[in-house]
């Protein structure tokens, strides 16, 4: 089996439980992400999703296990792995534009000032921020706009891997929908590899090629990898009409509602470290093409 672009191998995280013992948040978590893939990870609070995210970002060190990207082991934060944090993490003393150029300057230190600014403006425009708005400070922007700036900053850096940590968690449902659409659009235009944490089943079905399901912590593990067999480009109104949609959704709801608990704490067989691949395809369309290209990315051009 060829190594995927991003390979997470036997990741284990333990914390001291405060009374001398150790608390294992997750153990032997292993999975891979292909180039250009959009992968969501779903699981209950406390299963260590954010810890996995921080390890991938290089902001935290796992107790054991390795993360390899392009065959090289990952250590420490890097511009190759961009992060969109849940609470936007914009620098409040800089305008929206300056927040994006801050990232671009770090990524391309040799670029001229004009080039940096043009690049930043281009990506702000991709998420629908144009005109005077981009000169406002984050405090003068709504939550949705702030997260747009944050997304623009991450995409503008064109990292090899983009990590999204519950990016829409703090937004109201309507704004969330709009920004999800924008995220899909930017992602479609850039062929970015994305790994995203979310709590929202519908959001993950709309966005992802594949959803990783985690069992409950402690001793959580990545139990299943569910392929989202919905054709791209997707819109939220069309995918609900697709026969696969509710089959997939039901599977996810069942997992999070019941099986995540049942499977919790079970030790994994040492040989079978990869999550079980689940493929739900009621419609059964275009089977042949999917076998040849595992990622379901629809290329727009």
């Amino acid at each position, binding site marked *: 089996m060829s190594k995927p672009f991003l390979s997470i191998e036997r990741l284990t995280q333990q914390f001291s439980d405060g009374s001398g013992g150790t608390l294992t948040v997750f153990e032997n978590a292993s999975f891979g992400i292909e180039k250009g893939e959009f992968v969501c990870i779903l699981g209950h609070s406390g299963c260590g999703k954010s810890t996995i995210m921080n390890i991938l970002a290089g902001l935290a060190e796992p107790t054991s296990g390795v993360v390899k990207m392009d065959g090289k082991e990952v250590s420490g934060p890097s511009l190759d792995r961009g992060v969109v944090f849940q609470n936007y993490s914009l*620098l409040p*003393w800089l305008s929206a534009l300056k927040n994006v150029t801050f990232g671009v300057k770090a990524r391309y230190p040799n670029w001229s000032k004009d080039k940096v600014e043009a690049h930043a403006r281009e990506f702000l425009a991709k998420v629908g921020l144009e005109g005077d708005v981009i000169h406002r400070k984050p405090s003068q922007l709504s939550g949705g706009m702030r997260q747009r700036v944050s997304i623009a900053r991450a995409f503008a850096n064109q990292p090899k891997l983009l990590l999204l940590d519950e990016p829409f968690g703090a937004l109201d449902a309507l704004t969330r929908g709009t920004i999800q659409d924008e995220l899909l659009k930017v992602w479609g235009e850039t062929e970015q590899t994305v790994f995203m944490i979310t709590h929202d089943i519908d959001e993950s079905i709309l966005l992802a090629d594949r959803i990783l399901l985690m069992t409950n912590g402690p001793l959580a593990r990545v139990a299943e990898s569910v392929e989202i067999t919905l054709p791209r480009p997707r819109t939220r109104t069309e995918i609900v009409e697709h026969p696969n949609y509710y089959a997939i959704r039901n599977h996810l709801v069942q997992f999070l509602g019941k099986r995540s608990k049942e499977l919790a704490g079970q030790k994994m067989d040492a040989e079978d470290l990869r999550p079980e691949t689940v493929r739900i395809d009621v419609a059964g369309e275009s089977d042949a093409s999917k076998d040849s290209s595992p990622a379901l990315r629809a290329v727009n051009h």
Partner: protein
Amino acid sequence: MLDNLSVNQRAAILSVAMLIGGLLIWEASIPAQKLATELTEYERLMGLGQERAGVPPPSAVLEKAWEQLSNPFYDAGPNDKGIGIQIGYSIYRVLTGYFLAAIVAIPLGFLIGMSQVAYKAFNPFIQVLRPISPLAWMPLALFIIQDSEASAIFVIFICSIWPMLINTAFGVAGVRADWVNVARTHELGSFKTAMTVILPAAAPTIITGMRISIGIAWLVIVAAEMLVGGTGIGYYVWNEWNNLDLTSVIFSILMIGVVGMLLDAAFGVLQRAVAYAE
């Protein structure tokens, strides 16, 4: 009629009214001295005809102010210099001591704020040294430095260092981890992180510390100059007291207030410039 005015306008009218009222009460409460010709023979024999030193009325202070401010930079020997020269000396000492303190306090505060070990190691010293009245250092400073001018500057240094140090450390330690993470995920080095993320994030707290420091420094310079003598607004106040020229004393008290207010206002402007809303 007052209802049509803005809050600021109404406040301004009230301020002016209080000023005029206060000055009138002050003026009226100064007992008029009888002219020598109005005294009885007995009173003259008792020495009551001689001019008594009294608190001068505001009109005399205003007259003095006009006289001094119309020629603030004259220099007629060591004991007779214009108010501008005296204030100039004081500001020079304050700013010298203050900037020396800033050069030490801000980098050190950064270090203390960035490192928990440094924070805990420095803390007991800061806690002991901070409450010491700056003037208590004066004898030691005079003995070691052997120069009254430099000792005054040292006293300013030692009193302005603490608020800047503590506020810088506090501001730096309080920078949100998210912002530091933004710097880390953008592969910024320590120096770049300090300059582009931590400094702007901590700037409002640091400037607040600097503002407190300049206020304290200005309070302390008056007392310090009373001790070391020679020049400066503090020396001027004490010298005029020795001359029993209360008009000048009151005038210089007002000048101390005005200069202090201007120094504070300058930092107020700076504070607004670096402020940000989250």
